[in-house]
């Protein structure tokens, strides 16, 4: 390490004469949050693994679908529109079921890393009003997870086309478009769910546990409970994120016995908004750490 030489000149303001006055602004806080997230190697690696994992699962799904078509013995040119749509969405949005967990964890990291490292002290000293900090984090997280999810879905459609070129005819159908958008929205909302929970708990381990609990453990528990004859079990089960995610990933279609697309979107939004708002209120009222 170099020894600092003491140079009084260097302490003088570098703004003198440049007409630049530092000032806190929301645009600045947004830029700061973007730098924070993208400068973390762990975040970049997680994002890369998400993309690789997503593509890999799309390929697997495409292979599984293709073998089914051979079994069915129907030439691709004679397949009904519904089969082609199912193929496209099956390949593109199938990974979302598993990626849900990673997006939730990304959301957890987006805020829990500040608490685990103590960075939150520096962040709040720079943005003492707190509201802009929290909002900027949400915007940056939503943008990064939204872009990643959408890119994955589009790549998934590409993979689906490679395996069944005839499905191109249904690419712009409302079912496929709503399915791709719905699945992307599901992943973004799950990231926000993780973010909100981590903002409440201020802990990485706690945040991840809750996200895993909600996305994977609860559905299994509910599955067991279906053995009982309690009437509320299927209802609750229908509104768990995992179910909502698969409804959203199927696009706007008839849903027998299940909440429809728009209700599912609303329910998923509530899953995200409730912890995010509670996390906000706690951030405003609690001491920094």
């Amino acid at each position: 390490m170099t020894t600092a030489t003491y140079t009084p000149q260097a302490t003088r303001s570098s703004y003198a004469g440049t007409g630049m006055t530092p000032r806190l602004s929301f645009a600045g806080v947004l830029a700061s949050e973007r730098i924070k997230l993208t400068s973390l190697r762990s975040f970049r690696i997680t994002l890369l693994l998400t993309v690789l994992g997503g593509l890999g699962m799309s390929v697997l799904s495409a292979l599984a679908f293709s073998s089914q078509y051979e079994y069915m013995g129907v030439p691709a040119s004679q397949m009904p529109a519904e089969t082609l749509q199912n193929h496209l969405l099956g390949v593109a949005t199938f990974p979302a079921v598993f990626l849900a967990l990673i997006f939730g964890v990304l959301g957890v990291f987006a805020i829990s890393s500040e608490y685990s490292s103590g960075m939150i002290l520096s962040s709040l000293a720079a943005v003492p009003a707190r509201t802009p900090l929290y909002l900027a984090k949400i915007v940056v997280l939503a943008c990064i997870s939204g872009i990643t999810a959408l890119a994955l879905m589009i790549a998934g459609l590409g993979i689906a086309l490679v395996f069944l070129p005839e499905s191109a005819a249904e690419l712009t159908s409302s079912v496929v478009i709503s399915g791709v958008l719905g699945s992307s929205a599901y992943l973004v909302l799950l990231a926000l769910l993780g973010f909100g929970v981590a903002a409440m708990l201020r802990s990485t381990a706690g945040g991840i546990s809750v996200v895993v609990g909600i996305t994977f453990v609860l559905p299994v528990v509910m599955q067991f409970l279906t053995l009982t004859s309690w009437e509320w079990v299927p209802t609750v089960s229908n509104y768990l994120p995992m179910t909502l995610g698969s409804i959203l990933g199927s696009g706007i279609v008839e849903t027998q016995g299940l909440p429809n697309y728009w209700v599912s979107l609303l329910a998923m939004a509530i899953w995200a908004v409730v912890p995010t708002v509670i996390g906000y209120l706690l951030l405003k009222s609690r001491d920094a750490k």
Partner: protein
Amino acid sequence: MIEARGLTKHYGQKTAVDNVNFTIKPGQVTGFLGPNGAGKSTSMRLMVGLDRPSAGTVTVNGQRYSEMNAPLSEVGVLLDAKGVHPGRTARSHLRALAATHRIPERRVNEVIELTGLGAVANKRVGGFSLGMGQRLGIATALLGDPKVIILDEPVNGLDPDGVLWVRQLLRHFASEGRTVLLSSHLMSEMAQTADHVIVLGRGRVVADAPISDLISGGVTKVRVRSPQAAQLASVVMGGDESVDLQPLESGDGEGFTATGIEVQRLGEIAAANGIVLHELTPIATSLEDAYLALTRGEVEYAAG
């Protein structure tokens, strides 16, 4: 200028800061001195709005920190060298914080050079030594070229070079008319850096005075060596009841340490009685003595 009025902070049942009043003036280095748990860090956290006071107020240049338009230009703060994500490089850390205020990249480079972090700026902070972490913390505090600088234990972990550098830097900032506040539990550090000291103990202000007052505020002692020590002692004791004499250690020769009498007075008594003196030395009470006297009973965790 930092002003605290009736400032109080409870954490659950524990009172960290207890109805504290002080004014920290610009143009000088003020030291927060006190044992661990005295309320130094808590007071600093309250100044920059990280924690909310349970009662009372603290303002910086007349404003509450949370209401400032450009907090980083008003106050630079080093609270904890760990206020950095270990996975980020020093430069990314500084860039991220600078971005909030649209502070130009040039200033980021400036504070990196100023704090001697040039060689490690692009390395991840996780691998930094405690000293480098402190330098990064100081660089962060200086980003906005602030009018008020608050540093919690800034020399912790610094090598002697670094300690000297921080001392000079703080003195320089004070000479520019900025308000400089640093905390330490090391009395010797305070004696060398601060002009004014606020001694805290168990969340209360125990003393608030220029450092010279604090040092001389203790009782003056005078060291006397004389072949006629016994004679001098009897004359001194006969004249004034309140004088206390302690014989010197046997190796130091014949003499005593007098408490409660001015050095001039002792010299005059010796001359008037024709007593030969080999030594007549006023001994200033060290800050350490003053500090220990002040905080006795205010230490939260005493040994034994």
